[in-house]
């Protein structure tokens, strides 16, 4: 199998803090890899480097054979990488439907005629004229939104026309995942998708993510809830203080002394997780 994502010696410093120490990471097509580690370990920073929201000081990141370190996030997204954000970043004043539709942005074709130099103008014209091909494309995407929303049971479907700011916290997280799925990602990055969810909601989310995995979706997950990580992951990477401290099958990593120590070192977190 080929490597979908390959990070080599990726490093990120913030002033004196080295948030990500030279780290290697590979992810194969169809694999489910989780990153665990106490607060401040550098997990989100690593995500930001991969998704283009931040630029590594050193190292290479290769997505499907293309070096992407330092590329703009929109270009990386267009290559098929979707992510969610740890603290939730839905478009608050837009409906759930529109939120999800934005996820499908890079798949728009009919409305974006390929005219070198005049693409933007042509897109504006298409939006105003709305020829049948464009209308059909919108209709198809709208249909797809229903399918994606249905993945979340009846959590989102009845609320498709509500503004995102009116949703509960858990529903906003669901919207974010739905939006990421609308991109039809080759690689999906989830940053603590169950943060702030209760047990029932977490179990529900676990089965949704499990369903994605079963469909063959490649997933890179950051998660503190180790139960969920143990059940879903093919492989786990543990980070502490910016460095990778363990890597391997879930249970091996969980039992690794370095990991136990890292979590004990951050007592509060350790108690919650282990």
């Amino acid at each position, binding site marked *: 199998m080929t490597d979908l994502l390959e990070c080599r010696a990726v490093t990120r410093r913030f002033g004196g803090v080295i948030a990500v120490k030279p780290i290697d990471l590979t992810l194969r097509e169809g694999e489910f890899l989780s990153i665990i580690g106490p607060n401040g370990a550098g997990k989100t920073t690593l995500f930001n480097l991969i998704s283009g929201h*931040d630029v590594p000081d050193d190292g290479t990141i290769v997505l499907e054979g293309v070096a992407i370190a330092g590329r703009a996030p*929109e270009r990386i997204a267009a290559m098929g990488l979707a*992510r969610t*954000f740890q*603290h939730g*970043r839905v*478009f608050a004043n837009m409906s759930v439907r529109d939120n999800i539709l934005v996820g499908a*942005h890079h798949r728009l074709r009919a409305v974006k005629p390929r005219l070198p130099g005049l693409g*933007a103008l042509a897109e504006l014209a298409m939006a105003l004229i709305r020829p049948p091909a464009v209308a059909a494309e919108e209709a198809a995407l709208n249909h797809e939104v229903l399918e994606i929303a249905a993945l979340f049971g009846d959590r989102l479907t009845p609320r498709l026309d509500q503004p995102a700011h009116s949703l509960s916290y858990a529903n906003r997280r669901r919207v974010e995942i739905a939006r990421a799925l609308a991109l039809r990602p080759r690689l999906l990055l989830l940053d603590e998708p169950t943060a702030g969810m209760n047990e029932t909601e977490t179990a529900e989310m676990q089965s949704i993510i499990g369903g994605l995995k079963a469909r063959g979706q490649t997933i890179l997950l950051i998660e503190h809830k180790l139960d969920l990580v143990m059940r879903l992951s093919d492989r786990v990477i543990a980070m502490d203080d910016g460095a990778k401290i363990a890597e391997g099958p879930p249970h091996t990593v969980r039992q690794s002394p370095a990991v136990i120590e890292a979590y004990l070192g951050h007592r509060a977190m350790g108690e919650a997780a282990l």
Partner: protein
Amino acid sequence: MGSWLDYTINGLIIGNIYALVAVGLALIFGVSNLINFAQGSVYAVGAYIGWTCFTYLHTPLAVTALIVVVACAGLGVAIERIGLRPLAGAARIAPLLATIGISLVLDQLLQIVFTPDPRALTSPLPNWRISVGGGTIGALDLLIAATGIVSAAVLYGFLRFTKLGWAVRATAQDRDAARQMGVNTDAVNMTVFAIASALGGLSGLLVGMYFNHIDPAMGFQATLKGVVAQVIGGMGNVPGAIFGSLLLGLTESYGVAIFGSSYRNLFSFALLLLILVLRPNGLFASARSTPPEPMTGSFVTPNRPVRVPRWAIVAAVVIAAAVPLIPAIPYVLQVLTNAWLFAMLAISLTLVAGTLGQISLGHASLLLIGAYASALFALDSHWPVWASIPAAGIVTALLGTALIAPSFRLRSHYVSIATLGIGEIVGLVILNWESLTRGPMGVTNIPPLQVGNIELDNPRAAYWITLGILVLLAMMQTRLLRSHLGRIFRAIRDDDVAARAHGISLGRYKAIAFAFGGFAAGISGGIAAHQYSYINNETFTSTVSISALTMVILGGMGNVLGAILGAVALTALPEMFRGTAEYRMLIYGVALLLLVRFRPQGILGTT
């Protein structure tokens, strides 16, 4: 060589004066992340208080300065109470809009009390000058220099050695942490506003004496200069603001020496844009700053917009179209035609500021571009008016977008500053590019609206044409908002980081929105040029930009119908009640303040 020294001294003196304004702005930005647009108005108030003291009370300079400092500090406290404190939980741009409102109110009050005419503020200092090298220095120069140095020293001592000063620094570093440690941040804000305003007022007094000239409009220019100086030094950076002010003073002074005095402001704003584009965090910031906090500059409050049924819109258009049939006074038609023109500007601005979330403070410059383009096409290229107006729309779309494009990567307050700067630059370029624009003379004898050989300079025809074009533009924009572009614009407004994460390229879509908005504004300017038959670089000033913003907020940000409603309300109503016309800007200022405070979603709601 001697004159160079003079220019240097002059630049440093002016820089010193800017510093008194800029330091206040930096202090305020430091603790509250607010660009205090009322700072310049306080400066103007300071100058007028000084004038009043000299003229009526005949107080000596020291007493006058003391009165100015105390009164302006009090004004600063009031501004904090009205403009900042009640808006703690509101959108981040809300206090900025509130200070714009306060500034309008103060400027207008000055104009009403002291008349718009400039006055002489004669320095009571002796008139001697000593020569230094090849230049000369006067008593006032020395006083200004001393004031600058003493203020800086006192400020430094205050921040460094007093408990309150420590609280100010703690708040500037991390507001939440400071509050948790028991710092009374409200008291800090109030202190900072008092200091900033005292310095601002003092600066106004000194400037008035330096130029022996004060007028109620002087405040706005001072705010602009203070903001420019602050951007150069890095927002919120006090020593940076002093450095930026001196650099700005010198740049202007040398610029004037080389190119003449009408270029003074052009230099400051060119410098502003250069810094914004190249080093948006100021000259002293590290080259590679950390990614900014999630923060949008949009002014959109979660709300449910009012749904206006289609029949009501159709009915309103029919009624509007029927107005000329009633044997009304032509005056009413003229006012309403003007309202339609403003409405075109407002729908343009509501797209950019409301839907796309880029609060533009220089939108009137698009009117200027459109007006000049259409007028010059008609006069110099002999194009028929029906062709010159749409062409002006296209020129405005292209030129407006090209001007703003380098600033596309800026966010929030910086967008507002950049658009403000661009707005000023457009006016100044028009003023100075005489071969094309006829310079300060303006363009005269612009042909009236006409189609073929039929002249349409009767009020009815002009009314219908303007209304028709407005309806057309509004329909186009509504259609645009329902397309995928409407979705993308709103996504960029709500969270540009998340938008990029889903493949949305900010530059491309900002360009589309600005171009579309520029087209509508350019058309509006074009029509206006043919109706006014005379335009110059001051036909549409920053006041118009602020008026348009008020209309847009009144109607509800992003709301096309709201923008039209806001334009009609704020254009027509003050005219209908005779006698209120001269208070128009005062009304706008109060309206802006009340809206930001009590109904940020406007009449029809944001969309």
